[in-house]
């Protein structure tokens, strides 16, 4: 870890009482859903941290991670923060406590740039952000059903559409094509293929 990253890590530990994880030259801070908004406020405003910019926020569905049964929370939101003043970055992860109704506080009051990112995470993963002023779907079609980036949503989707010349309108029907996987997904044990 570079001295600069160490300084940020120490500052985070001192000010927030949570130890960030350093890997590959990046710091990751995990917070509970209850502390999420308060932590975000501190991260932006404290002079030693000064994360003025939220570059990215995305939903993650951990349900099939590593192809093994999952213990713990299913949905998470991962934000990437940037401080222009100090020139450092931080990854902020928060798990949704309830997988049946994933609910998190909205950061739109802290970083206005999060507006569309939260709409995207809502659209694709169904994570609801409490306090968001305009939580509409953003990328999928008008009237779309389901949250397509969840791991249990098939890549082909559920419906296909075509123009019906008799009814003179677009009709939706169940998908007719077979799902296929060209290259199977394989998780190898650690250090597979090294030595020997």
């Amino acid at each position, binding site marked *: 870890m570079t001295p600069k990253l160490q300084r940020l890590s120490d500052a985070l530990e001192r000010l927030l009482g949570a130890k960030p994880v350093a890997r590959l030259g990046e710091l990751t801070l995990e917070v509970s859903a209850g502390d999420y908004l308060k932590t975000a406020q501190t991260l932006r405003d404290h002079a030693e941290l000064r994360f003025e910019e939220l570059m990215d926020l995305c939903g993650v569905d951990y349900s099939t991670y590593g192809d093994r049964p999952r213990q713990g929370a299913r949905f998470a939101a991962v934000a*990437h923060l940037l401080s222009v003043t100090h020139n450092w970055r931080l990854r902020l992860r928060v798990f949704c406590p309830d997988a049946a109704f994933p609910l998190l506080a909205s950061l739109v009051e802290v970083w206005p740039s999060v507006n569309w990112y939260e709409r995207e995470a809502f659209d694709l993963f169904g994570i609801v952000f409490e306090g968001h002023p305009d939580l509409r779907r953003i990328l999928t079609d008008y009237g779309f059903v389901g949250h397509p980036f969840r791991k249990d949503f098939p890549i082909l989707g559920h419906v296909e559409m075509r123009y019906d010349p008799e009814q003179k309108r677009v009709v939706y029907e169940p998908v007719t094509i077979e799902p296929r996987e060209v*290259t199977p997904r394989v*998780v190898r044990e*650690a250090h597979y293929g090294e030595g020997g």
Partner: protein
Amino acid sequence: MAEIRNYTVNFGPQHPAAHGVLRLVLELDGEVVQRADPHIGLLHRATEKLAEQRTWIQSLPYMDRLDYISMMCSEHAYVMAIEKLAGIEVPIRAQYIRVLFDEITRVMNHLFGLAALGLDLGAMTVFLYCFREREDLLDCYEAVSGARMHAAYYRPGGVYRDLPETMPQYQAQHTRSARTLAAMNDNRQGSLLDFIEDFTARFPKCIDDYETLLTENRIWKQRTVGIGVVSPERALALGFSGPMLRGSGVAWDLRKKQPYEVYHRLDFDVAVGTNGDTYDRYLVRVEEMRQSNRIIRQCVDWLRQNPGPVISDNHKVAPPSRLEMKANMEELIHHFKLFTEGMHVPEGEAYAAVEHPKGEFAVYFISDGANKPYRMKLRSPAFCHLSAMDEMARGHMLADAVAVISTLDIVFGDVDR
């Protein structure tokens, strides 16, 4: 007294000034925009979901199709993220080639952006001039990768192949005289590097031409000065990056602040605006083209003198040469594994950002150790910039909303992903 109500207008999705498939719902009071609500997603292809079904290398060509104006920069973030996760060393020559093509891409993007901004505001000549130069750069793409636009040239661990020794030439046609043909092929006699060097020699003069047409042009200034003003504080809060942020006076450039590849070895300046309006962003982009030209020149000089490998010799990530593959059992196994199962990337997560011509483009990977990414997130600058559309267009005239869309420099492949 007649009742006066705001008028709602559908701008797009098929409108030439919408830069693709943007449906913009504008609420107008007379001709003044009260609210702009962009409806995006008409080009949503779920690239991130598709990447979860494909091996690490199979998703690379999708990166070209995100921002189809500046293709190789998106590839760059993608391979950088994989290299970070897997700890792959990239040969120095490959790093120079990547920087060379990143900067060629930047010039290409800004030429297109300038052409589109010009065309939207009624300056047709600039459009034609810019596309003339852009064509030469597309020829560089074609010479190196075989494709004019969707290059798929970068690979985890380097680039697909070394720079070619010959430049493709124009063929004889019944519409071309022998003299015209010779003139067209005049700068294509040598290698690709000769062609690029010739380009860098004449390009500053071309930029002067665009500036003669626009910079002091009264109509141009009336249409751009004071349009879509963003203060530095607001630009940071809205998550801006790239020329959008620099136009507002924040000297933030990843190539300088968080240098990747060989940018720390190269000499260039960062252009910064003062007022944060469309005119300043136009000036920033023009200056960036000049600086890119300098970088390209330095890369060409270095690449001439330093031959070497262009892709990693770790055959767990990069395929062995055909010759080795046919002569050596071990390499045959590597080749077979790499093209059937694909490479494995260690468990972990990485966020790799590059200074894309439009702003910060980043790829965030979560890997669970499989031969496919567990989750890929693309941080596209255009998505973020378009979300500020409402704030930037409010209070402007309808015609200026077009200028605002254009100054955001958005491409819908990138916004919708």
